[in-house]
């Protein structure tokens, strides 16, 4: 069978096909069909010829097979130093091999490549930091994912995730109406505790356009309310947009390049329409990478920059605390041992390591913050990045990977892990469920709400 009804080379184009795919519980039929899926070798080779540029070709060529990257990879470390988990091996045996064979690879090979791309690498880019030649296997693995996606070899959940972006311009089935209505709901719920709280919608020329993760709307809208409370308390001139509000991109994890562009265009359109002075996104790592770091290239922006200055939430928090827009009641600072999860996507890959530590300096009583080891740009991925958290097929491999973070946290002795990234937050939650080490985990917002001084005008009268 060349093309399956569920597993095929076509991206999701309609709501109906998205629902049909969702209806295939755990992707049982989908993966069955994948076993029969033909590889379009001509397409594969012509795509490589068009898109595999000199950087990746050079990287593949100059890799000295020295093995210096081995110890940098958490999957190598937690899998008993399995040589097949050495980053250089993982990319040479997949992308390298496809190129060597000019695309002449079969279905079995593609299955192996899929497992390597999604179950042995989170695209955390840590190996790139340790390669003496500066080769970034994470970047190459992302590229490989794109080739695999175009051939239909992609984990079920990510085919769905990319489809969600195509249909809803959001990672979940959350419509624009759902989003605005949920914000109104949160204002109703919180305005008596925080007088004057509301969500300005589609305000033109505001200082801040705030963008989010659809899961906040779907499952924990408290996060939206908390963001509003903090902006309000800081006296910011801010707005949300009724369209183009989703910062995340499962399309990036899936390797669906076309959907990546659709998604980021929707946010940039909102920016162009509302003309804010800057855009600030929620506490999410990959979303920042997708929309702020890589997005400009997907959107074809010549300057390689988004239409306005874009900041990660941690940058705004640091600014607000530094300038006194938000003030912390010193009595309410964290007085228990706590640690911080450095998100790969905005720390290692976007340099925000000092910013998050500046925030810790304001929020945590001196002596109670304990850094993980290693930390900052050397920190390990949470173990759930790159889409790994959501893939049922590779649950076992994901759970083994969580051990690296578990052991890092245990070594700090901290019971509270501050994780300003949705993916990290999920992975740390899961590792507690899996390994029960007795920790709590939190985004910044709920912690901040408890410790800031609420301005007089926001305090209820009664």
């Amino acid at each position, binding site marked *: 069978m060349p093309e399956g009804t569920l597993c095929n080379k076509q991206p999701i184009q309609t709501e109906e096909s998205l629902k049909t795919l969702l209806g295939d*519980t755990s992707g049982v039929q989908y993966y069955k069909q994948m076993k029969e899926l033909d590889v379009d070798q001509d397409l594969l080779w012509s795509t490589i010829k068009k898109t595999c540029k000199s950087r990746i070709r050079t990287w593949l060529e100059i890799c000295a097979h020295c093995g210096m990257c081995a110890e940098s990879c958490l999957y190598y470390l937690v899998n008993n130093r399995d040589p097949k988990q050495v980053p250089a091996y993982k990319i040479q045996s997949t992308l390298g091999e496809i190129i060597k064979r000019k695309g002449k690879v079969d279905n079995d090979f593609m299955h192996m490549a899929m497992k390597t791309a999604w179950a042995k690498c989170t695209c955390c880019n840590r190996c790139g930091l340790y390669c003496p030649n500066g080769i970034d296997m994470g970047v190459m693995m992302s590229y490989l994912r794109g080739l695999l996606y175009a051939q239909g070899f992609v984990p079920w959940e990510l085919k769905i995730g990319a489809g969600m972006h195509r249909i809803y311009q959001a990672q979940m089935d959350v419509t624009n109406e759902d989003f605005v209505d949920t914000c109104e709901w949160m204002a*109703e719920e919180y305005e008596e505790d925080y007088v004057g709280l509301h969500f300005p919608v589609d305000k033109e020329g505001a200082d801040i356009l705030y963008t989010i993760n659809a899961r906040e709307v779907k*499952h924990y809208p408290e996060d939206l309310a908390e963001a509003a409370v903090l902006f309000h308390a800081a006296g910011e001139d801010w707005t949300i947009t009724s369209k183009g509000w989703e910062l995340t991109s499962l399309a990036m994890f899936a390797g669906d390049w076309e959907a990546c562009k659709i998604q980021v265009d929707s946010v940039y359109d909102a920016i162009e329409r509302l003309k804010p002075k800057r855009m600030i996104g929620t506490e999410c790592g990959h979303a920042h990478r997708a929309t702020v770091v890589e997005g400009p290239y997907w959107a074809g922006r010549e300057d390689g920059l988004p239409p306005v200055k874009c900041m990660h939430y941690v940058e705004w928090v640091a600014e607000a605390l530094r300038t006194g827009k938000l003030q912390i009641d010193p009595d309410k600072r964290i007085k228990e041992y706590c640690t911080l999860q450095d998100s790969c996507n905005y720390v290692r890959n976007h340099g925000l390591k000092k910013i998050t530590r500046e925030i810790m300096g304001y929020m945590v009583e001196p002596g109670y913050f304990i850094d993980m080891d290693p930390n900052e740009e050397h920190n390990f991925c949470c173990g759930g990045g790159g889409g790994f*958290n*959501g893939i049922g097929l590779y649950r076992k491999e994901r759970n083994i990977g969580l051990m690296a973070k578990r052991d890092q946290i245990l070594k700090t002795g901290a019971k509270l892990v501050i994780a300003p990234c949705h993916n990290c937050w999920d992975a740390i*939650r899961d590792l507690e469920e899996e390994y029960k080490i007795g920790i709590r985990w939190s985004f910044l917002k709920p912690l901040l709400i408890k410790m800031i001084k609420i301005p007089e005008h926001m305090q209820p009268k009664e």
Partner: protein
Amino acid sequence: MFKNILLATSATKACDHAARVAFELAARFQSHVAVFHVLGVPSRGFSQMIVDVRTGESVPLDDDYKAWVTEEIKTYYENQIKSHKDTETNVAVGFPHREILRYARDNKTDLIVMGGSTEDPDLSGYKKIMAGTTLQRITKSAQCPVLIVNRPAASFWGGISSIVFGTDFSKASDVSFQYAKKIATSIDDAELHMFHSVDISSPHAGLSLSQEEIEDQLREARAKMRKRYVSQLKGFNNYSIDVWEGLPYVEIVKYAREKQADLIIMSHQARDVSPDKERLGSNMEQVIMRATCPVISINKHTSALNN
């Protein structure tokens, strides 16, 4: 009044008494009953896996699973549904408190009925995910009254006749009063007992109040109750007012016992849902835990009845 009752249930024994109260009220007020069960908490990032709240197992979510759980719930409440035709059953996925609040808002529910906590920490997967309990979060944020039946003994078998209204003189208490009055006046031979406790527990009142000060406060509170509430009870004579001093939640529970209350109505003031305090934070939570009858909690989001 109470045209649209939402029975939020885990479909386990913990909710049996709440279910009985919900259907009892529905029969009395000819209400529509929505039996609502949040079957699972989303997990695994964006995946379709959920943790079933009753079994604690990870299961892949699909329409079949939802339909199967819906049928199970219907079977669990088979007898009630048979005798009360105007009932529907729905299930949802999400964090229980959030989905219950969402359903209530979307469907214009005018009374949420819930059982107490399941007490079993291993059973409630959601507790590990978000601190605080479902009950706490719903009583804090619901836009309509919430009726909680926590203790197994805490359910009326023979209908409602003795209603205790506890007041702290807040705005929410004024709304609670309206509900109490409305329920009392719509039931034949109902008694309405209005109660306030002067809080003499430290640190609220300092370490020691003189007996004169306490008695002054008691007098003041009685006068306030007459002015605020009794004046509105035109034509309804079967009421009493009492003001005691002590620890408010203890006093109200004692008072309710003395009056053989079938229902306590009071307002909920707590601002924070604190993970550290678990559910023992406010007077309301203490009363819910201890009272031997159902408790209706009314928060500041609940709008007043149109008289």
